[in-house]
């Protein structure tokens, strides 16, 4: 897997006329996992979008090396298409070797995406990320809506991705069962 890294320096985030947090720095390299923790509304999703380069930080810089895959609350799969075809659309663009990860979607491949349940949609998003071939995963609440079994399976897949040389940033208000996680509490950077 290609070398990857993410270095964010002195990030401040403003939404509307409110500064959500400031002075936040983080870095993650191949094999690393960062857990962005904090209560609802603290700015976890905004920070993920800043790290992805989709949102301009109010202050600070972000440097990225390597491809990025993002799973947030927006599935980015065409709702009317069967899951297999919706995932195949991204594979035709990415042309990457999909990572071997089991998200239990084998039985759902012919189900139109709009009929998937919350947990199944989350798993589909993780499958899209895993198939993208990008070394750097940005996951916004990846365990929301997953039952205990698939929650642990998802974390197994995340750990395997890191062992293979990838890096992961997870925004989640839930505790993670992963090892060697660098936890960043966003509350510490609130004004």
């Amino acid at each position, binding site marked *: 897997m290609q070398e990857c890294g993410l270095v964010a320096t002195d990030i401040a985030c403003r939404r509307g006329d409110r500064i959500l947090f400031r002075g936040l720095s983080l870095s993650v390299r191949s094999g690393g996992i960062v857990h962005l923790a904090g209560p609802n509304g603290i700015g976890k999703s905004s920070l993920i979008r800043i790290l992805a380069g989709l949102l301009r930080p109010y202050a600070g810089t972000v440097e990225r090396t390597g491809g990025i*895959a*993002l799973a947030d609350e927006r599935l*980015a799969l065409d709702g*009317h298409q069967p899951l297999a075809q919706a995932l195949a659309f*991204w594979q035709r663009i990415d042309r990457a070797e999909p990572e071997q990860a089991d998200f239990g979607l084998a039985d759902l491949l012919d189900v139109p995406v709009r009929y998937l349940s919350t947990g199944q949609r989350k798993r589909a998003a993780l499958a899209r990320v895993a198939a993208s071939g990008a070394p750097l995963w940005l996951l916004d609440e990846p365990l929301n809506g997953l039952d205990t079994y698939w929650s642990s399976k998802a974390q197994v897949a995340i750990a395997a991705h890191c062992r293979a040389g990838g890096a992961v940033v997870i925004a989640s208000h839930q505790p993670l069962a992963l090892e060697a996680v660098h936890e960043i509490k966003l509350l510490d950077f609130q004004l």
Partner: protein
Amino acid sequence: MIRKLWPIFTRDLALLTRGAQGRGGAVLPLLFFLAVAMLFPFAVGPDARLLARTGAGVIWVAALLAAILPLDRLVEPDVEAGLFDQWALRGISEEALLAVRVLAHWLSFGVPLMLAAPLSAGLLSLDAQQLWMVELGLLLGTPGLAAIGVTIAALTAGMRAGAALGGLLAIPMAVPLLIFGAGSLQPDGEGGLALLAACSLVALAVAPFAGGAAIRAGRE
């Protein structure tokens, strides 16, 4: 880049032609276009000379209004579903995406209108010469209408009541196309075609950049 854009183009074209998830497809604007041509003789009476004199203008008005119908599903659903974010992460520029979308939109909207124009011409008792000029005008003008449509759709994506606002914004921008398109059908109006083509080219040149900036601004 072309390798990445090709699957996007085929998806856009399939979605805009067939329609899905609250996207009506190419049939709705087409039926609307034909319905106007069908209703007009009912409203003004069956006088063939009057119809032949006004009919070509009616075809242009119908084409412009038909262009407004698909505005709310051109860009908005894909912004909403996060597709534009995912494309951005893969390094595909919004400009390229919107240029592809203009092409797909024109194929699914402009070409069917041109195919339906002979039917409309029959309903409005236009002669062969007029029909030829209408077809030529649509060939030059519908790419401009498609470009304006995609620009407006990108500008209003994510806005509440974007659909209604989109229609109101598109009409004034499309007026030059209407004037030169309908004007080219007047006696000695061939110069109108050149101006029509010029308007279309301007719209086509501006659309990817204006729309791309709008989508990036919409992320803030």
